[in-house]
């Protein structure tokens, strides 16, 4: 199962690249020029997030170096480690609900400390891929619709977050 997954992971990117370029050529798109154009946008995005990334990585770095994170993780971790959730994952899950970029700071810290291919590294990778910034999305979108009573939205969002967490723990355990 894990092997089949690795194979699929390996072929998906070449397959997508091939399909997109082929589809473009068939529909007479100037593929190279459009690619360059899009690549420029991509670079702009990266430049735009650089300041955010510096700010947040410094924030996480400071908090970690101070020893506060280990202190906090040690307390919560005792409760969660029994069900396969390492202490470092707990703040990550909480922060991710509010801000994707702040979560990124924590993710990179985990990768640096434990490596990307360890259990915790894999768990982090999968978890961040299958969860969203619940509170941010809800507040922006409901503001657009001028809605004040959000009814069962939050409950549903939290259920899907838990589902993602469970799936991540199971899948990371299989890797």
């Amino acid at each position, binding site marked *: 199962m894990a092997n089949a997954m690795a194979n699929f992971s390996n072929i998906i990117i070449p397959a997508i690249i091939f399909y997109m370029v082929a*589809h473009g050529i068939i529909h007479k798109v100037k593929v190279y020029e459009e690619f360059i154009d899009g690549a420029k946008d991509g670079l702009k995005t990266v430049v735009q997030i650089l300041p955010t990334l510096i700010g947040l990585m410094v924030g996480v770095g400071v908090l970690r170096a*101070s020893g506060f994170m280990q202190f906090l993780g040690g307390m919560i971790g005792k409760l969660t480690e029994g069900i396969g959730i390492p202490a470092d994952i707990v703040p990550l899950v909480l922060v991710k609900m509010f801000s994707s970029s702040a979560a*990124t700071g924590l993710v*990179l810290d985990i990768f640096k400390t434990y490596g990307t291919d360890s259990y915790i590294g894999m768990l982090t990778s999968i978890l961040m891929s299958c969860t969203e*910034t619940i509170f941010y999305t809800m507040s922006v979108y409901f503001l657009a619709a001028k809605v*004040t009573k959000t009814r069962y939205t939050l409950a549903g969002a939290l259920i*899907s977050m838990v*589902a*993602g967490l469970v799936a991540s723990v199971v899948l990371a355990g299989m890797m």
Partner: protein
Amino acid sequence: MLNYIWAFMILVGVVYAAFTGNMAAVTDAALGSAQEAVSLCITMAGVMALWMGLMKIAEKSGLITGLASGIQPFLTFMFPKIPKEHPSRKYIATNFIANILGLGWACTPAGLKAMESLAELEEERGNTGSIRRASNEMCTFLILNTSSLQLIPVNMIVYRTQYGSANPAGVIAPAIVATLFSTIISIIYCKIMDRKKGGRK
């Protein structure tokens, strides 16, 4: 929100370090992290440019529009009460496709349009009032959005590359499985709530 989170990290970090004698480590971390953010962005620039370039081709070749019309049956299943010609369907479709492909910049505008359009649908239904309640469609739309629809976690692949993963793309398959699982759970939840609260209109 981020103002408080960031201030919390910096202030608590410095104060805690002062009490535990980790000031030197904090100095190193502050300077080192800033430097590291720049080198991460350099790694990221290549992959992001590649991905966005490909997406531009997909946009121009009509692949994205094609995908949007491809998910119409799914929209009919999830939102049976939105009329077939209603503009909200187009926005919802665009938002879902942008989410699935991981086009962050395209998700939010389409998502906001979808919400506005769903609000208009509520007005057409005669549900106006000072306290605006979310319609069932809005709840479903947002729950699906927050369940994460993204299939290829491009950012994660970049971060894994930067931190020396032996197989950065190894996250793709498990990520797809986990995303599908959380989305299916959300769909089931929305369907149950839709049935339960459908008659209250």
